[in-house]
């Protein structure tokens, strides 16, 4: 693909002049404008009018492909990434795929040539498709789903985070701990649910507690939202099986569970303790505030942009794959500690 440099060279003018013509700015002589237009036509140049960096010639527009924005985790991830991208002088365009492999591929096919790089939270992409994407445009996957293909990936400590959460519940004396958000279909796109269920099992094993299938709730297909969390919780309440704590695999699910428990007249955490995963902003402002696992969103954004920067600058081997797993942190608030917790705690 031809660059603005090529156009400038062909037309025998400066980059700045090409930029003026492309952006329709005044103070360009008609003859110069024609020369530039001709060079553009000849070279088949398409301008990234805002995005292309005049100094480096690099396309400074980066795509961020997310399945959707309705889950607070994704909107806060997007914010962190845009903040970090700004530091790298990159502009971010959010592409919404609804977790559909066809849409994920289509965006790469059609937008790829205009993007300097791509950060993708893949849902539907197979192993082979992920590799195709990475070979089409410099790509870093932010993904809980693992790929054997040589691609760059940043992931959360899914398993360790939930394991720590179960350990926290156990340390407070809870023994009948329900899990909210499991998936038993085994579909690879539900990797986060699988890993978090593993973490739940680990935590029980650490404490010598039995795995009780009736306490494991499969919810949240396709989205982990409050509605799904509330529905799952109501099912558990109706089952009339004793439980004293709920470990939800996402904050949105936990907030829905909180609502359903309060609706049923249960006191949190005196009767049932609740915790989530994600540490989204809204979890701090519920009453009681929500204990959660912070998955290191800022670190994920930082690492993803650093990896992408290498890719865009061509300083890594084409067929090398790198994996970064972000650090997690347990954020303890009122929903497990009650009045002892500092509200809004760090």
């Amino acid at each position, binding site marked *: *693909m*031809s660059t603005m440099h090529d156009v400038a060279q062909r037309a025998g003018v400066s980059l700045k002049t090409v930029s003026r013509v*492309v*952006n*329709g700015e005044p103070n360009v002589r008609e003859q110069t404008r024609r020369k530039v*237009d001709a060079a*553009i*036509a*000849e070279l*088949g*140049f*398409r*301008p*990234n*009018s*805002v*995005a292309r960096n005049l100094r480096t010639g690099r396309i400074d*527009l980066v795509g961020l492909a997310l399945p*959707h*924005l*309705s889950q*607070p985790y*994704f*909107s*806060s991830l*997007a*914010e962190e990434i*845009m903040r970090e991208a700004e530091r790298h002088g990159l502009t*971010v*365009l*959010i*592409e*919404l795929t*609804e977790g559909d492999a066809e*849409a994920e591929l*289509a*965006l790469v096919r*059609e*937008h790829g*040539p*205009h993007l300097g790089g791509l950060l993708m939270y893949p849902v539907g992409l197979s192993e082979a498709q992920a590799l195709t994407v990475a070979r089409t445009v410099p790509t870093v996957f932010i993904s809980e789903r693992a790929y054997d293909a040589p691609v760059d990936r940043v992931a959360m400590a899914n398993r360790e985070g939930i394991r720590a959460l179960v350990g926290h519940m156990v340390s407070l004396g809870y023994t009948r701990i329900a899990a909210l958000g499991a998936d038993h279909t085994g579909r690879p796109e539900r990797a986060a649910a699988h890993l978090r269920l593993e973490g739940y099992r680990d935590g029980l094993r650490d404490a010598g507690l039995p795995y009780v299938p009736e306490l494991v709730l499969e919810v949240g297909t396709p989205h982990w*939202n*409050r*509605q799904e969390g*509330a529905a799952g919780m109501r099912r558990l309440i109706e089952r009339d099986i004793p439980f004293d704590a709920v470990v939800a695999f996402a904050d949105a699910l936990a*907030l*829905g569970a*909180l*609502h359903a428990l*309060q609706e049923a007249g249960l006191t949190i955490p005196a009767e049932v303790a609740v915790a989530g995963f994600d540490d989204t*902003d*809204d979890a*701090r*402002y*519920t*009453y009681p*505030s929500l204990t959660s696992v912070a998955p290191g969103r800022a670190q994920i954004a930082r690492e993803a942009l650093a990896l992408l920067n290498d890719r865009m600058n061509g300083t890594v081997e084409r067929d090398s794959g790198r994996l970064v797993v972000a650090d997690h942190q347990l954020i303890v608030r009122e929903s497990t500690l009650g009045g002892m917790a500092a*509200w809004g705690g760090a």
Partner: protein
Amino acid sequence: MGRSVTMRTVAEKAGVSTKTVSNVINGTGSFSPETEHRVRAAVEELGYQINPFARGLRSQRTGTIALVLPNVYQPFNAELAEQVIRAPETQGLKVVVETTRGDAERERAVLSTSHKELVDGVIYVPEALTAEEYLPLPLTQPTVVLGERPAQAAGMHLDYVEIADEQGAHAAVSHLLAQGRRRIAALCEQAEPRAGGRRLHGYRRALDDAGVAYDDSLVIGVDNADLWSSGAGAVARLLRTRVRFDALFCYNDVVAIGALSVLARSGVSVPDDVALAGFDDIEAARFASPPLTTVDPQRESIARRAVSLLRSRMDTEDFRDLPGRCESAGFVLRVRKSSSATSNTLAQSPT
């Protein structure tokens, strides 16, 4: 170099498909050097001119529309983006979201030069720019603005979908008054061009209609109404002033839920001591404890109207062929437990 030379003519001359011509011209897909040479020769011979900058010429469709938002951390914005993707009118279009982060320069760039190679049209939510600032910018693509249509936009070639800020606020405050509340405080963002001024106007008009005097000490400014912490801070400030209040109308749900978190911990019972109402009907409002009374601005209708207006403009040869249009999505007052022991819904149909 006549207009009659089309990509098809070039394709025939070069003995390739129009898709291949397009690939060579745009540098997309793959083709052999030999094919490229044939296409380029045909382009030159026929004098075929590619002018992607021709204003209003909608020859190169991308099938993508951009939703330009101040941010995506405000749930209203994220949920709006969802509705835009899901709208039946969006069928067959891709949606990208660009955030302006309240930066006037970015808003200017988006309106006048935004990634034209990527999108066919723009749905724009103004944040930093006032109408006086964005209206004089050269429009380069079909544009729909979400927000109040200013008088000076009449006769311009862009469309508006209005949110019922004033009427919605009026209905919410009237509802609080109907619950017997008389000391109604307002937590409101007032910075232009955001909706605070209009919502505050609705608040004042409702008080007037009920013969309740407006009291300056009951109106507290909010710095950034997109942050949960803002409502918490503003209500803490209000509580410190020791001004008596029995109801609270908030600029939006994020502010209201932030305020609720402080009230709950200050021993103030909602709704017994203070009745609470917000604006936006985000998902968190339904799941608040107690569930939040709020104005539902009909996000689905806003999204569908915006995409439909945009599409009709994108479908014209020159998007300036259509006059500027303005639609309103109406609102529904969702009465929940934060303001009333009995919940119900008061609707106002779209206009």
